[in-house]
């Protein structure tokens, strides 16, 4: 069967008995069997669990929960009770959690069918997926290319049509990059909108949990399921942003984001996006965020510092293997973190980075307040997907892939990444819209406006 590409099509089909939930699982598993070995997308396939849930749903036959009958695959950094969770690292190769993440529980309580756990850069350290201790994931659009990381499997699983939706984590682009490189929609929510309880921590002042899917409507549905306080992540607040219907939107174009180093096809594509919006009466203003050029340096101090602390728990005593099983990138980041926090360097690196972070935040907040823009438009990455192996021996060049992602994480603001076309080599293109904290609703509205105007249709690679 041709599996439906959206939640609505899936649920309509189930309700009208065009297909059963079991038949959907059959189709996804057939696709997994056909392509997974080559593309290395799943680390664990939960076939029995998927069939059990599908049979239960078919028996009840109602499909009236928000995610009823929706097949979900999780980045393997989300704890799943009784199902192996590796974080893409050999140190956790045989770790089986005794509880599930809040987001996993919420998704399954909303009727979803869990089909498996997805490959990722080990401990979410990477922009390409190549830092997984279980081998790189290939991009289904072209297998010579990386699918983006660190949620590499979360992007590839949807463009390979092996699941309907997926989850990821975004500390500096790890949801948005794979979405962008696989022709998908994704949301990096406001910091503190979604609980991270049960998600293996990377950098706690930056980590966010969010959805990947093929339409803005689907991403919105999943976000509404997973958001909100659970009492187990003290940073989460039930805050409602502005949900008023706006008659006119205003978008800022940060001039520092459209400079040398940005791929010309991406620049041209975003200009076309702007033209589409202008036809829809959206106003554009040039804005300046001079300190964002330091974003990547701030990020590569704060993040390793927090990594060195969070990964201290992996000592092989209570769970997992000993520290010799940590991969190269994890070791590099832990050492970098220990260095910037160590006596004599704390003030000039860590404290300095936290102060420059304040400068970036204040500039971004000013633009939302003073210039009254609803969103900022930006590229997701400086280039389209790059080739496997191209940056793996030069960690600094890999880090610079995150240059456009950093602002949203450092400021704790939401960012919606959405597809906007293909390169001449048929590789996906996209852009991101960042808004003030808790402005997800307006970002969804703005995204829908664009997709409606271009008559966007979801696409998979095969």
């Amino acid at each position: 069967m041709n599996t439906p590409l959206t939640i609505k099509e899936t649920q309509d089909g189930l309700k009208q008995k065009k297909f059963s939930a079991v038949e959907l699982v059959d189709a996804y598993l057939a696709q997994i069997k056909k392509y997974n070995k080559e593309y290395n997308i799943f680390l664990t396939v939960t076939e029995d669990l998927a069939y059990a849930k599908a049979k239960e749903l078919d028996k009840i036959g109602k499909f009236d929960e928000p995610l009823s009958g929706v097949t979900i695959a999780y980045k393997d950094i989300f704890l799943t009770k009784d199902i192996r969770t590796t974080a893409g690292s050999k140190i956790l190769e045989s770790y089986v959690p005794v509880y599930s993440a809040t987001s996993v529980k919420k998704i399954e309580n909303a009727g979803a069918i869990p089909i498996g756990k997805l490959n990722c850069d080990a401990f979410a350290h990477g922009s390409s997926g190549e830092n997984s201790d279980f081998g790189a994931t290939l991009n289904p659009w072209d297998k010579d290319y990386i699918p983006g990381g660190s949620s590499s499997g979360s992007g590839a699983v949807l463009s390979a049509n092996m699941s309907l939706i997926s989850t990821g984590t975004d500390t500096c682009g790890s949801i948005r990059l794979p979405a962008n490189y696989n022709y998908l929609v994704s949301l990096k929510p406001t910091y503190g909108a979604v609980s991270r309880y049960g998600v293996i921590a990377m950098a706690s002042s930056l980590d966010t949990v969010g959805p990947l899917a093929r339409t803005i409507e689907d991403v919105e549905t999943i976000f509404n399921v997973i958001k909100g306080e659970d009492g187990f992540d003290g940073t989460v607040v039930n805050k409602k942003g502005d949900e008023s219907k706006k008659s006119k939107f205003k978008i800022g174009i940060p001039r520092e984001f459209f400079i040398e180093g940005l791929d010309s096809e991406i620049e041209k594509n975003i200009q076309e996006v702007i033209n589409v919006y202008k036809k829809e009466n959206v106003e554009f203003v040039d804005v300046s965020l001079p300190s964002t050029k330091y974003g990547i340096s701030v990020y590569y101090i704060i993040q390793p510092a927090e990594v060195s602390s969070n990964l201290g728990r992996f000592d092989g005593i209570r769970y997992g293997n000993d520290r010799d099983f940590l991969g190269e990138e994890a070791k590099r980041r832990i050492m970098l973190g220990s260095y910037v926090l160590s006596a004599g360097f704390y003030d000039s690196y860590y404290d300095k980075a936290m102060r420059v972070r304040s400068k970036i935040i204040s500039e971004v907040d000013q633009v939302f307040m003073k210039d009254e823009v609803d969103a900022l438009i930006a590229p997701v990455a400086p280039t389209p997907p790059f080739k496997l192996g191209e940056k793996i021996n030069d960690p600094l060049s890999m880090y610079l892939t995150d240059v456009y992602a950093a602002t949203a994480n450092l400021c704790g603001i939401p960012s919606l990444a959405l597809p906007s076309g293909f390169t001449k080599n048929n590789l996906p293109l996209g852009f991101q819209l960042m808004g003030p904290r808790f402005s997800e609703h307006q970002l969804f509205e703005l995204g829908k406006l664009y997709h409606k105007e271009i008559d966007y249709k979801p696409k998979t690679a095969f």
Partner: protein
Amino acid sequence: MTKLTKKEVLHVAKLSNLTLTDAEIKKFTPQLSKIVGFVGQLSEVDTNSVEPTNQTTGLTNVFREDKVISENILTQGQALSGTDNTYNGLFKVPAVLENRT
């Protein structure tokens, strides 16, 4: 350009509870130097009048009631299930004290 010495790399590895092979020391030393050198560009930014940020949504001191949530309690068996290295229902840990001679 910042240059980390082998001694510094070994010191940082010790702080990080990591044991490095010679090949790793050789590989990491120039890589870490390059990254530290790059992020060192922050020294050019004037930050005298700004406070450091470590929380972006303005929360301070979040509390909850200290009560038992039964569904979140692990049994002893569950708590120990991540390792084979147990003794009498307890985790076995490396010795921190040495025998007196």
